């Protein structure tokens, strides 16, 4: 139980922010950062703990976003239910892609490629299918009521996304300490050795994929409720696939708070880039690309890893925690 204390502290601290700060700009920044953190938290389960790098996580984000939007707009379904179904839809897509990929034994580059391809297929289909509004996209009607999961105050949205992030953190931590988690990490480290020790690697990877997809889909569902508009580029575009992997890598791949740290950092970098150069399109992504390369090159364990290294230097070198090391000597 006490191992959950860090999560509690972080969540409570974050929850207190809207009580002290009233700037809409800051709150908006935090809302978006938390949404990206949630998407990254999802990627981290499969990529960070499981070592399977997906380059197409937008497939789940977009499915969550579209399902939530379309169910409300075309079928009049209640927003909260549409939200849940959106998460379910994302999980389903994850199950399908995972089943197809892992049963065929796809690993490494091939897996990254196939996920990229699936996301692209979904994007193209969404850009022409009438149900998603094709090129025009889907607009959700403004209805500032609790029942419609829309709020007047930004703080309310903030607490919603924070709750989702908190749930994701708890799920991740439970996973970290469970047998399933130990198996998943073993697969990341050495899949063949894991098999020899009795790990059903296909089943475990599939399970991780479903959890991962559900989390990222939740971020997509939230996107719909917050921005009230979604189209194929927003839903399934590569920007989200990149942000979903960028945030855990920068923050600390395979760690609990990595995605959160990474999301805040990435968003801050984006803001700085934008303030320096105006609204020129593309520059923030250039910065992200550079940061990705620099982090992989010089700080493979991300910010969380760097902090852990620092802490270890200051402490007596007695207990060595088995944190993830990406560079092999």
């Amino acid at each position: 139980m006490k191992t959950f204390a860090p999560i509690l502290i972080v969540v409570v601290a974050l929850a207190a922010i809207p009580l002290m700060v009233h700037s809409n700009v800051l709150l908006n920044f935090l809302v978006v950062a938390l949404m990206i953190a949630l998407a990254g938290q999802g990627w981290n389960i499969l990529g960070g703990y499981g070592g399977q790098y997906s380059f197409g996580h937008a497939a789940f984000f977009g499915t969550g976003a579209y399902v939530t939007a379309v169910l409300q707009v075309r079928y009049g379904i209640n927003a909260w239910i549409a939200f849940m179904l959106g998460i379910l839809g994302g999980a389903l897509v994850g199950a399908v892609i995972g089943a197809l990929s892992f049963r065929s034994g796809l690993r490494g580059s091939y897996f990254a490629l196939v996920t990229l391809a699936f996301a692209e297929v979904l994007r193209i289909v969404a850009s022409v299918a009438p149900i998603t509004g094709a090129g025009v996209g889907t607009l959700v009607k403004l209805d500032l009521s609790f029942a419609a999961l829309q709020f007047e105050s930004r703080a309310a949205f903030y607490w919603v996304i924070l709750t989702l992030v908190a749930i994701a953190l708890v799920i991740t931590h439970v996973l970290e300490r469970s047998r399933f988690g130990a198996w998943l990490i073993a697969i990341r480290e050495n899949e063949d050795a894991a098999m020899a020790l009795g790990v059903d690697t296909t089943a475990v990877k599939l399970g991780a994929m479903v959890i991962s997809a559900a989390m990222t889909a939740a971020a997509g569902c939230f996107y719909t409720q917050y921005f009230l508009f979604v189209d194929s580029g927003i839903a399934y575009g590569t920007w989200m696939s990149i942000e979903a992997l960028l945030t855990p890598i920068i923050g600390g791949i395979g760690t609990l708070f990595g995605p959160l740290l990474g999301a805040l950092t990435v968003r801050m970098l984006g803001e700085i880039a934008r303030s320096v150069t105006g609204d020129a399109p593309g520059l923030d992504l250039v910065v992200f690309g550079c940061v990705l390369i620099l982090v992989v090159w010089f700080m493979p364990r991300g910010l969380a890893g760097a902090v852990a290294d620092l802490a270890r230097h200051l402490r007596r070198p007695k207990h060595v925690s088995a944190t993830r090391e990406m560079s092999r000597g």
Partner: protein
Amino acid sequence: MLSPTILLSAILNGLLTGAVYALVALGLTLIYGVLHIINFAHGALLTAAMFTAYFAFKTVGLDPYVAVFLLTPIFFFLGYALQRFVIGPASHGDDRNMLLITLGLAVIIENTLLFAFRADTRTIELPYAFATINLGFTFLAVPRLLGLIAALIVAATLWLMMNRTDVGRAIRAVAKEKLGAELVGIDVAHVYAVTFGFGTACIAVAACLLIPSYYVNPTAGNAFVLIAFTIVVLGGMGSVPGALIGGLVTGVAESLSGLFLGESLGQIGIFLTFIIVLLVRPRGLFGARA
């Protein structure tokens, strides 16, 4: 409903398009065959090469078919430098890191172009760009026919290089058994860089051939990258003849699915082929075990 003429025309045009796809794929398959990673920066590099060819034409009036002789060595050295000084050192030898680094490069290149040149689509106009050869039942565009010829020449050159030269032998040694090659004194980092250089050189050739009949914008390369991946997987990772044949087959597949499903869904034919091949026979038609 669909006359054999239309079908044949679609197939022929698919072959021509496929030839250029094959050129792009040749570079990718070479890099995969030797470095064993998928170069996610391939599409962005293609876009960069296309922009270079475009501006060479716009500023000094350099004809793309002439520019190709200049751009190819330049891009060879660019690729060499990228692998030798960025990708190699940054990955610390881990394949997964290499994926991320090439992805990062792709993002940087593509968005730098976007930032510098906006998203506008540009084209160049060559006086003979619309020249066609009349085959009686259909017309074949001259630039694309040149593309087919160039693809065959490049493929043949690559094959000769790999099988008849010392450099090629070193490359094949490293591809097969890196540790062994190192032990006999081959400079693996250099070989990797040379291979990457050849890969980007192929991109430069493809870019110059595409420019007369294709548009250029910061995401133009992306349209080709997934197609190139499909070809490489279909033809077999690391196989030069596989990339050539795979390219032609993919071109025809796209042309036919465009015919039956309409333009916008034509691309889907490619991705679905890609996914199916990956799932069913990942080593493709000619490749070694994945």
